[in-house]
């Protein structure tokens, strides 16, 4: 077990940031903490990092107490904070060497430069880097001492798609090396594609926890089915078996169902009886985004919401 937390609660004055978090994280893999702004993601991660003290509850990271054994823990923990200001006037290489000197053992600056693909920029001052380059440097700093546990707080926020993909690649390499990565994000597709386990946080509570695949399966959302046929179709038999007909979208008939398997079987029967040939069939299962929207409810008013589903 890499992280064990029980009854974690954090209050800032009268504001409650975490309301009793119970969480066990096994070694290996990428764990995503997903939630809207203010859900408590950063507070939770920073308690694990020993940067904040919980108001109550117990926590153990790599078998150590972050509050009392923090130096020992920091030797084995790689951290990327949500905002990472770096000392000015220093070059990329100098910064890596500086941070390397803080640890009992660390990799060479060159090894890290290669790993985060910054070899060509080693002599540049950090404040002249682009957003994506700086973020790679910040991740490089987090990895300099070869940590077994890596915590990344919104590593891709504000990055362009290319820079985001580069960072995803670095995280996948961490997984391939058998390290445990804990990352917070408010990008749902990032959690869906990158994480082996997703923990959804809302108002300081865990509201969902599982693999992206399992979480989607738990959705109460309906699936959407589109079909195109070579003639005029009467959708009435479908409505009779509990499927909602949503009319036409272009040349496609659109249906909504909570049981897509049964619906497709019923569709086959109907087409046969109406002597129609199927030209196209598309199925859209609920996505992690649908699950997320279901669970977060009105907390998302200020967040970017999902697009309408279309084929």
């Amino acid at each position, binding site marked *: 077990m890499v992280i064990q937390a029980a009854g974690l609660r954090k209050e800032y004055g009268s504001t409650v940031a975490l309301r009793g978090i119970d969480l066990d994280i096994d070694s290996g893999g990428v764990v995503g903490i997903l939630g809207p702004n203010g859900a408590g993601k950063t507070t939770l991660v920073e308690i694990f990092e020993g940067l904040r003290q919980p108001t109550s509850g117990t926590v153990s990271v790599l078998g150590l107490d972050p509050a009392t054994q923090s130096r020992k823990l*920091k030797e084995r923990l790689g951290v990327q*904070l949500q905002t990472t*200001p770096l000392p000015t*006037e*220093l070059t990329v290489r100098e910064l890596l060497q500086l941070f390397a*000197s*803080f640890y*009992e053992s660390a990799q060479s600056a060159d090894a890290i430069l290669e790993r985060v693909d910054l070899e060509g920029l080693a002599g540049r001052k950090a404040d002249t880097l682009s957003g994506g380059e700086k973020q790679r440097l910040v991740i490089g700093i987090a990895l300099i001492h070869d940590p077994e546990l890596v915590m990344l707080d919104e590593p891709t926020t504000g990055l362009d798609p290319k820079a985001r993909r580069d960072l995803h690649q670095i995280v996948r390499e961490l997984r391939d090396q058998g390290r445990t990565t804990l990352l917070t994000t408010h990008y749902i597709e990032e959690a869906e594609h990158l994480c082996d386990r997703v923990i959804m946080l809302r108002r300081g509570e865990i509201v969902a926890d599982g693999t992206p695949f399992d979480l989607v399966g738990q959705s109460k959302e309906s699936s959407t089915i589109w079909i195109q046929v070579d003639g005029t179709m009467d959708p009435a038999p479908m409505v009779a078996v509990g499927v909602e007909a949503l009319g036409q979208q272009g040349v496609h008939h659109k249906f909504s169902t909570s049981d897509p398997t049964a619906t497709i079987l019923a569709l086959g029967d109907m087409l046969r009886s109406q002597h129609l040939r199927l030209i196209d069939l598309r199925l859209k299962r609920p996505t992690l985004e649908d699950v997320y929207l279901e669970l977060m409810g009105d907390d998302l008013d200020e967040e970017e919401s999902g697009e309408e589903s279309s084929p």
Partner: protein
Amino acid sequence: MSYLRGLGPLTHAGLLQAFRSPTSLFWTLLFPLTWLFLFGFIFFRSVENKVLMMPGLFTITIMSGAFFGVSYLMVKERESGILRRYRATPITPTTIVLANGIRAIVTMSLAITTQAAVGWLVFRYQVDGSLLLTVLVLLIGAAAFVPLGLFIGSVAQDMRSAPAITNLLFFPLIFGSGAALPAFMLPEWAKTASRLIPSSYLVESLHGVMIRGYGLAELAGPIAVLFATMGVGIWANSRLFRWESSEPIDRRNLLVTVAVIAAVYLVAALIAPAFQMTRAPGGT
């Protein structure tokens, strides 16, 4: 040594920053020279004044380095979140404070060397007493006041309040101590009050070695007070270091610390030998 791991590289990085940034170069090297010229043109016309002003000038350089240079550096590093990033590594507060302190002492040494060199070239200023002892006293002085500057840096909330605190302290420290004005020119009450001002003991020590040619034994009193300043400053840092601006300052802790610092100077004022610098030159 694991407790101080990173001290060398962090000090080195700090010095690289100090010498690469034009703003920092201006404040550490050029600004002290403007003091030299200001003093030079006002006081250096007469021989005895010229002799008298140098201890004050060096004291001002150390004070401004400690109170403006190093305290602002701490506040900025904390406010910008750099200290918070360091906090996520195994580095200790002692290492950070020491690295900033050593950086300040090195830059101050360079400033003073520049001042002395330019002073000698332009104004033909020379030290009358032991040069070696002068250097030693300057280093003790720097090591005494840098911790106080670092302490102010830990106590100041942000870059808005830091200048208020440092200016509030800086002017009494240079005007009340015989640094900006020769101590013998001060009125009697101010001469008495100067015994409560930490920087007076540095001016007194420098005055003793540079003008009166005193040896270490004769300077033991004021130098002891400088060591006490260093000790109490280091102690204060260990009590009030803060990684983050959002960490509240423990008021009670602060009050106790300031009270102890004040008590140290009260005791110093009572037991330290009488100041020699308050006597008019040539009247010995």
